């Protein structure tokens, strides 16, 4: 699998928490920071709202990568949303890699409302990682049988 995939654009679903990471993305946009157009942002109230269903469902519907980003622990608008999310994601990421999902398909990070630069940088790095892996085919829904 050559890693260049000649200009293939990965499709990455980004779940961004409304109070920090989404604002960080907004800041990156306002600041005209350049980052790949590979992400589709889904705004959620808090990273604590992300259920493993969302991540598996994204892969099933053809996503090549999933990024989940919330407020830094301690900054959560709902006090403990990201704390409980942190435990859940730690287990989920471990489990997905345990079953053999390619490293680099699922990413979790904390981006605050003031970190526009970090947002653009993260999106760039995640896109490169996923592009290196090529189209995802492990968890995609295989619909019909001959």
């Amino acid at each position, binding site marked *: 699998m050559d890693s260049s995939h000649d200009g293939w654009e990965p499709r990455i679903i980004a779940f961004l928490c409304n109070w920090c990471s989404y604002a960080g993305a907004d800041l990156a946009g306002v600041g005209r920071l350049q980052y790949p157009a590979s992400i589709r942002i889904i705004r959620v109230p808090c990273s604590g709202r992300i259920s493993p269903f969302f991540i*598996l469902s994204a892969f099933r519907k053809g996503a090549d990568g999933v990024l989940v980003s919330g407020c830094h622990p301690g900054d959560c608008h709902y006090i403990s949303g990201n704390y409980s999310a942190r435990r859940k994601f730690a287990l989920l990421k471990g489990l997905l890699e345990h079953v053999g999902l390619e490293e680099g398909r699922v990413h*979790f990070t904390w981006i605050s409302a003031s970190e526009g630069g970090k947002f653009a940088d993260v999106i760039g790095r995640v896109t490169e990682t996923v592009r290196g892996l090529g189209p995802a085919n492990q968890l995609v829904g295989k619909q019909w049988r001959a």
Partner: protein
Amino acid sequence: MNPTDCSNRIAEEAGRLLTEGTVDVVIGFEKGSLPMRSTPCFVRTPQDSGKLVWNSFCSSNLSRYLKQFPGKVGIVAKGCDTRALVELIKEKQVNRESLVVIGVPCRGMIDGAGVLERCDGKRVSDVEERDDELVITGDSFRITLARGDFLHPACRVCFTGNPVLFDVLIGEKVQEQARDCYHDVSDFESRSPGDRWAYIMSEMDRCIRCYACRNACPLCYCGECFADATRPQWVGRGATGTDTLAFHVMRSMHLAGRCVECGACRAACPTKVDIRTLNRKISSDIARLFDYRPGLRIDQPAPLSSFKPDDSEEFILER
């Protein structure tokens, strides 16, 4: 305590509870219709308590039935059954006061299918348990087998054979094994991702989506399971590899910090799919990251409904 004495003591205890009216029903095991099988039973009269038995083939987790009996219930429970009980009580599904737990120390349950295979299909008429041996007699053959070779996988790593919660204890406590350090998980993780994926998918390929694992699990008590929901439909309902894996991954996530590793799921699975590797991966992470073992203490908060400011961030994309 050998099975016969154990059975008699349990029958006496149940008879007493029913005669006194302390409980309306005692959930236990009676002799199955096949060799090496004990089957759940629900005793409501003192006269019936005689049919209660205890042996090395009582692998079902009887806590699964508690929600079927609202009144005052007696339950015959081995170590892992009581750990499931602790979680059910912690999650307010079962009320401790309405329970009388007849605790039975357990040296591990035996997978009869493995023994039958060793008798290569010949019919078995009687199985006698003697300390660490099984004496199997059938038509024109008689063999003695080492008990330890036929334990259910979950029982091989069990460190809570003694009930963690009981009102009455039947017989003496057993010698516990060392606390489980999940070597099987670390061994599995030393293999390459591609190798792990191939193994998991070949296991999932045998799953026929019969949901015996879910329905045998004492902690899977949702009214409508996500696997049956259509609005939204999170998981495909066909037994195609990816949808089957998604179902088992999601069920394991729902059992995170709750699964007491009684092995009832694998024991119930007709095609013996290795779904335990998923639950054990999560249990090993929970033990390592949050220093928590499910089903040991009622007062210990569940890991996913609590947190610490300095929880691990090993999985976070580095700065």
